[in-house]
């Protein structure tokens, strides 16, 4: 079985967001880029599976749509243990565009893993779109994924519970926190090995955008916090009830 992990390149989660001049994107000066945290969970689980089922899983490949600036992120994925990286050389502007690009390479992988969300535009969209483009089954909010003979044992969160499923391949699994143990820090050995692993760059196919960002703005600033004395908890309850009207 070959596994494909979709990798997004996003600003570090502690980044203070500043906008570009026309307010349609962020000012990327000084931004540190990381693997989208949910995609990193997916990658970690893929590595765990490959270690546990060396015979059944032949390779783990990571793919991304982005400019050459996203290569450090892919190289990190290689250092963590992925066998190969593919970069589709185009700016990732919209989920539809990204999914159509990935569709050209994704079909051959029996299992595709995607993160449930991206910490930049919080789209939750690429994985599902890709599954539909490939006309394959998808499961979302996956918190457990394991091999069972030639099938996949999946645990997913449903709204108000959990479900165990037995799925056949090909499958696209959209994963969330809990899927993997701790995310991995690349080891020196892995960093060395990444030097010789392939990072393939592919030209984009003709596609279009389904959405566009017109404007970004900062959320309205909150009024100052109203402090209540520690020994006057009753007053807090009164304020919540009478002033905020939320109790």
């Amino acid at each position: 079985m070959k596994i494909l992990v979709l990798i997004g390149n996003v600003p570090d989660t502690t980044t203070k967001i500043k906008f570009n001049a026309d307010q349609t994107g962020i000012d990327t000066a000084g931004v540190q880029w990381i693997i989208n945290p949910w995609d990193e969970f997916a990658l970690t689980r893929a590595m765990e599976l490959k270690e546990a089922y060396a015979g059944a899983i032949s390779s783990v490949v990571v793919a991304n749509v982005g400019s050459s600036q996203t290569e450090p992120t892919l190289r990190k994925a290689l250092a963590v243990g992925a066998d190969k990286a593919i970069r589709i050389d185009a700016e990732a502007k919209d989920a539809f565009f990204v999914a159509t690009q990935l569709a050209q390479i994704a079909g051959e992988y029996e299992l595709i893993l995607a993160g449930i969300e991206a910490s930049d535009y919080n789209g939750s969209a690429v994985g599902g779109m890709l599954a539909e483009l490939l006309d394959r089954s998808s499961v979302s909010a996956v918190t457990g994924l394991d091999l069972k003979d030639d099938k996949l044992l999946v645990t997913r969160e449903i709204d108000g519970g959990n479900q165990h499923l037995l799925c056949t391949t090909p499958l696209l699994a959209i994963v969330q926190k809990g899927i993997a143990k701790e995310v991995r820090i690349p080891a020196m050995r892995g960093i060395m090995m990444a030097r010789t692993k392939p990072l393939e760059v592919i030209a984009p196919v003709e596609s279009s955008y389904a959405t566009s960002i017109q404007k970004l703005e900062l959320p309205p600033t909150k009024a100052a916090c109203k402090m209540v004395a520690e020994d006057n908890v009753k007053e807090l309850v009164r304020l919540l009830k009478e002033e905020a009207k939320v109790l």
Partner: protein
Amino acid sequence: MNFELTEEQLMIQQAARDYAQRELIQDVLERDANATFPAKHVKALAELGFMGMMVDPKYNGGGMDTISYVLAMEELSKIDASMSVIVSVNNSLVCYGLDKYGDEFQKENFLKPLASGEKIGAFLLSEPEAGSDATSQRTIAEDKGDHYLVNGTKNWITNANSASTYILIAQTDPAKKHKGITAFVLDKNSPGISLGPHEDKMGMRSSDTHSVMFTDVKVPKENRIGEEGFGFTFAMKILEGGRIGIAAQALGLASGALERAVAYAKERKAFGTAIANHQAIAFKLSDMAVKVENARNLCLKAAWLKDKGEAFGVASAMAKQYAADIAMEVTTEAVQIHGGYGYVKEYHVERLMREAKLTQIYEGTSEIQKIVISRSLLR
């Protein structure tokens, strides 16, 4: 000139940073309070390859350059200098010494498990009567034909108890003074070795420091590093490289304190505004930042020279003296910026200040570095 780090160097820096900020931070206060050895972190950092970063991969090392090592040391030291001194001793004293001067037998048997971090090492040079002045070694290794018989005492030995492998500097021919000094590699478990009590230190409290006593300890001939009489040159060469590690440690203490001071100054309010908006604080931060940047450049320059195979002894002395001295200044200022909070352990900066003090003392005091630097000027 090129000040850009490679993608790989950035990845190593980030890896060290991630480990420090995610893992070391968790129990650093507790280990400082109880002076407990960070065994699980040594194991984890070994698995990541940080215990033998610069050793040739064929001896289980990471095959990375000295610049990467400086970057890693800085990141680890921002959070936990006790851990980083263990890394530093193992990398730049023990592994470096064996990698550069050991023979094939020694590399196979001693270097491999040290470079993989499966075992850790200690470097035994200082003596009760010979700290900065390494020429007057009192520990004697007497030639007994197929082995040496070692007697004497070593002091202030980092990793003394947790190490499995010792690199020992001892006198084989007292008449020849420093030209009669020889280096050895040996097992800590060799009969006749005993440890003094755990030193109760001011800082770096989670690394273990002891004196080590040798009483009729037999050391096989094949454990001698280089020829008889090579020991002093060996020790001086190793310390040249070791200084880069401690300089980077001091740098990390300073830059870690600066990061905390900046964050605190933006958060803490006084007279109706963040204290960072008061020039008294802002200018302090500015002075600290310049010092940190200077120290970083000195460290990287020394590492760069070493990586190019050029002489780096003076550069590493400059880096160590300057970084150690500004580490003391910057951590002290960070405590000052934190005010009362800076004086309590929860805010970390008082610990960084205690730890910074040692960087001015060990692996050559600031004064010794000035001797090295001034001699090179006056030669």
